[in-house]
């Protein structure tokens, strides 16, 4: 772990340890909010905000937290910043906050965030934790972007609300229904695994 450079610490979140495709964490919000790209981006940014700040806070006070109550302490820290994010969205981006509904408060039980605190921030310096959280966030936002992009283009023929498919295109309604979320993510995870196997067998 200590041998890793800062750049590697950041890059591992993008692919090798991508929270969604490789670690299968945080699947609930990933599936729920990716029916449109704008929702995916909002969710990704809100989660990133909470993850980065919580990681920095946990890393800086890790010596003060007795290990018996560490999980409860992490949850309180996370819940505080989720409240901040929730209130902020409700005040400035009411429409997005409404369409995301209970999924913003539910960031508090997103396993990616608690998982990073337990696995990384509680053992590493503030700087490294910040970079690690940044990498994980980027990986999460990228995963949401890919999934919501596919679903919005195939499900409505649009990307971020702009028409991208020609008039000949008949939207696949299934893609914006829950079923489309499950099937798309299943295929994407398989593709990620396939790429990993191919690159491994080559080296």
């Amino acid at each position, binding site marked *: 772990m200590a041998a890793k450079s800062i750049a590697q610490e950041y890059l591992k979140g993008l692919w090798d340890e991508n929270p969604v495709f490789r670690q299968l964490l945080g*699947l*609930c919000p990933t599936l729920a909010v990716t029916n449109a790209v704008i929702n995916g981006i909002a969710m990704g940014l809100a989660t990133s905000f909470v993850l980065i700040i919580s990681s920095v806070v946990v890393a800086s006070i890790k010596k003060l937290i007795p290990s018996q109550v560490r999980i409860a302490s992490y949850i309180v820290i996370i819940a505080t910043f989720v409240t901040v994010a929730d209130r902020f969205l409700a005040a400035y981006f009411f429409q997005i906050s409404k369409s995301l509904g*209970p999924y913003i408060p*539910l960031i508090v039980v997103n396993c990616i965030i608690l998982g990073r605190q337990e696995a990384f921030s509680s053992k590493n310096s503030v700087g490294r934790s910040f970079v690690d959280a940044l990498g994980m966030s980027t990986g999460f936002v990228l995963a949401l972007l890919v999934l919501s992009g596919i679903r919005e283009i195939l499900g409505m023929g649009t990307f971020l609300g702009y028409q991208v498919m020609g008039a000949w295109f008949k939207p696949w309604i299934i893609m914006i*229904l829950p079923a489309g979320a499950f099937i798309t993510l*299943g295929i994407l995870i398989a593709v990620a*695994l396939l790429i990993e196997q191919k690159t491994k067998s080559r080296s």
Partner: protein
Amino acid sequence: MELLALFISAILVNNFVLYYFLGICPFLGVSKKIDSALSMGLAVTFVMTITAVVSWMINHWILIPYKLDYLQIVSFILVIASLVQLVEMFIRKASPALYQALGIYLPLITTNCAIMGLALLAALKNFSFLKTVTFGIGSGLGFTLAIVLMASIREQLDLSDVPKPLKGAGIALIVAGIMALAFQGFSGMIK
């Protein structure tokens, strides 16, 4: 009548797993064997029912009268965490057999977003007390139904020839997608 409609829609139409995407982690993680899936489902139903009662009381007796509803997230998660802990201690004393059966699944429930989702959804929809409890039981049973169905399909999948990259999570998610599609058929039941 309204309660019955809510109950049925919580089980079939607005199924927590297949419609709200809540509780995906245990749904994928504990659905390899039918009997452990059933235990997990029952444990979740149990905790959900109690959470529904307690979170309603906290919301309507403490948070709303004192205008503290911005503390909802923090207070709900703390209540759920301590509730799971209490339930675990109580079951261990009261029924060791049940404790053996639920065993490791109980602590896992704390981070199950279905429980937190239930408390938040009930608060968001401003349900009355009876409705909240009905919603809690119905959602728990809906979760149980989904996870047991999933486990029985996966037991069959073990015997079939799945392409290598799809093995595990990939095929499980695609199966869940087809299940969600089947459950979509129930949506006409409740207007």
